[in-house]
């Protein structure tokens, strides 16, 4: 059945209102401070490390993102952990909050489709994430100039821009997940709890669990074990399973983009290294190509989760 009118009628109004709500909400303040403080801590460690070692590195700025000094993890690792938290914080009560405030049926009685409400809320959440992450990105650039004293090159900027975009997409995955849960569960507390559970599972437990599962599916070969080498099949399974976690995809994509020497993600076979000068950086386009499947994976995950949330929401009956 053809629907009358545009499904996006009212989209702009929803985006503007939600964006204003997000940017002025107290929870956003808390999350921003959390991120800024952790970022400072991580960068402080990295800057200290970098000043000690070298000033000749052509990718000094990028090193800032990836270098870690124990006990602090690298800036990218911290973001991989914190961005989901931020996105969940923004998304866990999008629909059920509206329902509990009894505003949902009043809004849906206006001449708009549910599509506009859902899409508007998602776009506003994504824009909020983009604003905060861009601020953070500028912060890092500023700090780099201040403490390292070397202006970043064009390629460095390009690579760190890719980092920024992938970080936003990564946030989108979690935002879509949180919105899906906010449609499924009527109680925001339940939705938040489930979202945090999934977050812990995927970022902390899954990396430990996937090797175990992989070795059950494809048991290690004794011949390889005798040589002290991992079995290729097991390794492949392990990688495939690990990539089910968006955290892993984000980490891999960032590795490819921010460490220009990365030639392949995962196991490297000897034929891939033919003619390669080890340790030489890849051109920007090549690095992007390596990260491409991971980036597409993140985008696909976002779309899938959003569509799921959309379908469940369309079928839901709204009674005040």
């Amino acid at each position, binding site marked *: 059945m053809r629907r009358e009118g545009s499904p996006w*009628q009212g989209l702009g109004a929803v985006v503007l209102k939600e964006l204003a709500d997000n940017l002025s909400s107290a929870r956003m303040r808390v999350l921003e401070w959390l991120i800024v403080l952790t970022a400072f801590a991580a960068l402080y460690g990295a800057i200290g490390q970098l000043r000690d070692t070298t000033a000749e590195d052509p990718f000094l700025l990028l090193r800032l993102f990836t270098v870690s000094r124990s006990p602090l993890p690298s800036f990218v690792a911290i973001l991989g952990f914190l961005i989901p938290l931020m996105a969940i914080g923004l998304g866990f009560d999008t629909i059920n909050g509206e329902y509990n405030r009894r505003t949902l049926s009043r809004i849906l009685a206006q001449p708009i489709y549910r599509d506009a409400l859902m899409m508007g809320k998602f776009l506003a959440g994504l824009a909020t994430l983009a604003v905060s992450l861009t601020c953070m990105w500028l912060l890092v650039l500023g700090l780099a100039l201040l403490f390292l004293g070397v202006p970043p090159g064009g390629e460095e900027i390009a690579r760190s821009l890719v980092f920024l975009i992938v970080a936003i997409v990564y946030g989108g995955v979690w935002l879509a997940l949180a919105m899906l849960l906010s449609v499924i569960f009527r109680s925001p507390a339940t939705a938040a709890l489930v979202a945090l559970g999934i977050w812990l599972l995927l970022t902390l437990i899954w990396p430990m669990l996937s090797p175990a599962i992989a070795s059950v599916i494809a048991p290690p070969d004794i011949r390889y074990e005798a040589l002290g080498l991992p079995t290729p099949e097991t390794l492949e399974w392990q990688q495939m399973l690990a990539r089910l976690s968006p955290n892993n995809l984000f980490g891999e994509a960032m590795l490819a983009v921010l460490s220009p020497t990365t030639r392949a993600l995962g196991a490297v076979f000897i034929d891939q290294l033919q003619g390669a000068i080890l340790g030489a950086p890849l051109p920007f386009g090549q690095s992007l190509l390596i990260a491409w499947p991971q980036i597409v994976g993140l985008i696909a995950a976002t779309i899938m989760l959003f569509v799921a949330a959309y379908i469940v929401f369309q079928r839901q009956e709204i009674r005040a």
Partner: protein
Amino acid sequence: MGTVITAHGLTKRYGSATVVAGIDFAVDKGETFGLLGPNGSGKTTTILMMLGLTERSAGSVDVLGQDPMRSPLSVKRRVGYLPDSIGFYDNLTAVENLAYTARLMGIGSAERRERIAKALARVRLSDVAEKRVGTFSHGMRQRLGLAEIIMKRAEIAILDEPTSGLDPQSTADFLDLIRELRGEGVTVLLSSHLLDQVQRVCDRVALFQSGRIVLMGSVAELARKVLGAGFVVEVEAEGTDLERKLAAVPGVTAVETVAPDRYRLTADRDVRPGAARAVVVAAGSLKRLSVDEPSLEAIYARCFQPAAKEEMPDAA
């Protein structure tokens, strides 16, 4: 005049439970129509189907010449809805809340401001226009909901249990606002389980019971159908042989002497003019003349008495 809402065999099933069981009704332009029935009798479900917020299982509805499932946007553009438990964004002011819905309706910014100010004035919320809705009482929220409908310039206003939980004064105020709305030619659909309110404002009512309309018509019509006679007129007068003379007034079906000089007439219409004339003609002195409007409560009691016990768990 013409009809603005028509329902034919409208049905809603949830699994095996039939919540609305093939109802038919028509609402004329400009009339105030009451949906009356105990909790759980299917009023809200019927309303949701009229707005296209819930899919119907069978039958058809036509709102302003359109099918709310096919053309939800044009129906929702012309119909205002006050849900039974209305909510606003507590962190926003009354104006901001209305501005958001106005934007959703696609009203331009200059017109928006003007329409909002007017609507708030109409429901007497101008003083608190810039206050956060979080500070509003229940009655103020209901009035704000009505302001939204006024701002929308809706041709049909659908109000679901708008006065439940309001104190008597707020209820009276709200009913006055409904009357004003009707005075402007807006068709009003009012759902309620409170009889006297429906009686006070509605031209016609439909009595719902377990998803069916068991009775429909004006309160006087229903009274005649259910109670036999609609009007009870009390006459207090001094005079001789009044009982016989009052009984002769056209329309009076019975006369009862309740006390010396006090008579209760049962009639099929309002017989006060005739009764007054009869007393005067008999050279009596008329002290008091009052009419008991046919009470919906009596109709309701008569209609639902046997079923009331079954409905008890639902009515909680």
